[in-house]
């Protein structure tokens, strides 16, 4: 059976994202899946700009801009405000970048998740602070160049495992997704929509200027991230039940890295190191999946 992606658009063409922006496409799909009864909470990130300046909005659903580190808490407040006034079926969608999620906003997110507040939190992950000009975040992968990790001192720590962090909160639903597999993405959002409590979606979102790639290969790279097992597609239910939603083809990581300017300084042996790290993480994921079924 093929998943049907709803035709109705809730994101207008007047947004100001760069060509090939994965974050813009991610929003489009997520809103299609959620429908009109959605309120978007937006901390500072590229999307604060993409949404359009006052008095415009590229979204046809209500949108609340909030401070950088507050997506989780502001979303909780909005949900409580709606509920006490009798609106129990509007989805409150916190929509934050990796910086607003992995770094500065992790406290508010952890608070909301521990309380299991009834919100859908989406992190669109472009693996750096793009709004402020490509600085490293804790989501930046090992080996990557950013403006604060110059090539002679590239990022030498692995990407923070945010899914494990969220799983540790025992929230009912957490999943990874990417814009290269819209069926999978939309299905996960639709599933999340039927669940109450804190739901977390981690969407890998290619960023042409930040990754130093031509915009026309953005989707191809997102696909390669999955096929190389760098960014596996899976779900975690109640912090325990792991399900891999797509078996990767197992393409060598070099096929993903070589297209990206942010990795072009890496030597063959450094790429081999990345391959080893990826294999290890994948084995980890497999064993968690096996154990939970």
């Amino acid at each position: 059976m093929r998943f049907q992606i709803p035709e109705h658009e809730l994101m207008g063409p007047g947004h100001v994202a760069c060509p090939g922006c994965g974050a813009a496409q991610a929003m489009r799909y997520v809103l299609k899946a959620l429908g009109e009864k959605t309120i978007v909470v937006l901390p500072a990130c590229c999307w604060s700009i993409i949404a359009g300046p006052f008095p415009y909005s590229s979204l046809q659903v209500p949108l609340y801009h909030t401070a950088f580190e507050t997506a989780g808490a502001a979303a909780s407040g909005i949900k409580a405000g709606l509920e006490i006034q009798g609106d129990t079926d509007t989805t409150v969608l916190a929509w934050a970048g990796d910086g607003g999620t992995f770094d500065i906003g992790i406290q508010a997110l952890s608070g909301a998740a521990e309380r299991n507040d009834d919100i859908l939190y989406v992190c669109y992950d472009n693996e750096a602070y793009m709004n402020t000009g490509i600085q490293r975040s804790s989501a930046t992968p090992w080996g990557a160049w950013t403006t604060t990790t110059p090539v002679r001192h590239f990022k030498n720590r692995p990407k923070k495992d945010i899914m494990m962090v969220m799983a540790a909160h025992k929230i009912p639903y957490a999943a990874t997704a990417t814009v290269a597999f819209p069926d999978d993405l939309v299905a996960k959002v639709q599933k999340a929509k039927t669940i109450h409590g804190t739901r977390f979606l981690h969407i890998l979102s290619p960023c042409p200027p930040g990754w130093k790639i031509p915009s026309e290969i953005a989707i191809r790279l997102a696909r390669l991230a999955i096929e190389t097992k760098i960014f596996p597609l899976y779900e975690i239910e109640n912090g325990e039940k792991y399900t891999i939603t797509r078996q990767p083809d197992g393409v060598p990581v070099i096929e993903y890295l070589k297209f990206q300017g942010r990795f072009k300084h890496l030597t063959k042996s450094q790429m081999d190191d990345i391959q080893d790290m990826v294999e290890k993480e994948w084995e980890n994921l497999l064993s968690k999946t096996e154990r939970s079924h």
Partner: protein
Amino acid sequence: MKKVITGNYAVSYGAMVSRSQVIAAYPITPQTQIVELLSEFCADGLLDAKFIKVESEHSAMASCIGASATGARAFTATSAHGLALMHELLHWAALGRLPIVLANVNRAMGPGWSIWTDQNDSLSQRDTGWLQFYCESNQEILDTIIQGFKISEQILLPTMLVLDAFFLSHTSEPVDIPDIEVVDTYLPKYNATYRLSTENPYAFGGLTGPDHYFEIRYKMQETMDQAIEIARQADEEFERIFGRSHGLIERYYSDDAELILVVSGSIASTTRDVVDQLRSEGRNVGMLKVRMFRPFPRQEFRNAVRRAKKVAVIDRNICVGFGGIFYQEITSTMYGHRDDLPIFGFIAGLGGRDVTPNVIHEIVTHAETHDTPDTEIIWIGVKR
């Protein structure tokens, strides 16, 4: 119903009879009992509210902002470091034009860690666009919460009311807790004009360029100017319904006084007693209690000191590098109006040091025996 309760409980009761709908708060000494009693009210169904037990004051304010943006009545309480942690969000609430009410228990900032009272925490938030009320008694605390929502929901700016650590927060006084149905007649359900609603989608707070931002500030100031009259009316209407009012600046034997002491918070109670005593000795001293600090009722203040020969401002705070903050406000208020009026700026009671009747006497004697102040900061009771 009359009950003997602490200032903290007066806050909780005030939030309850105001029918707060969303409460998000985080414990900090000496505010904790506010949160505890409100949790009990919610647990017992005495208050039909969502209480979000957030993981920080920062998130408390962020949650109040979210809730208020949906049109719900939102309340929080904090103190000192908690208020400081909220700073960015205090601006956000005011610029977002959200009628949130916050009770702040005045506590000194650390280090060294202090849990005792002074006003530097709330006065550090002076420029965030919140209304600020300094309370003298537990009754005033409770009433100011109700009035705060009443005023804020008309003007769409948030209100902070302030009570002194321990001198009010932990001191019991008889308080009249009005019937919630009577409060309903004074403070009807909040009906937000602009709210987050999927039926009428708006985007709030997006990128605002130089073509529009300037006017946001202009409108805030315009509203703050109107807030003085609206607060006055709210206080008058309050008196008609509940039989008591508190004023914006309370005059106590000040109309014919040669020396006027300008005070705020619980120091006002002590000063009141000292004024009574001095008056009985035939000394011509009066008091002005500044209850409303933001917006500052400048005209009312000027009128109140029209006939004074001297003004002595008592600050339980200090803007380090300048002096007392109320002093600063009052000298600027009087600039060009009564250049013949000497204004003395006293700093007393920092970090919760007692401001006893003797301290007030010392201040009065100093002002009476000097024609003009020798310095811009007159320290009282400091160990040098």
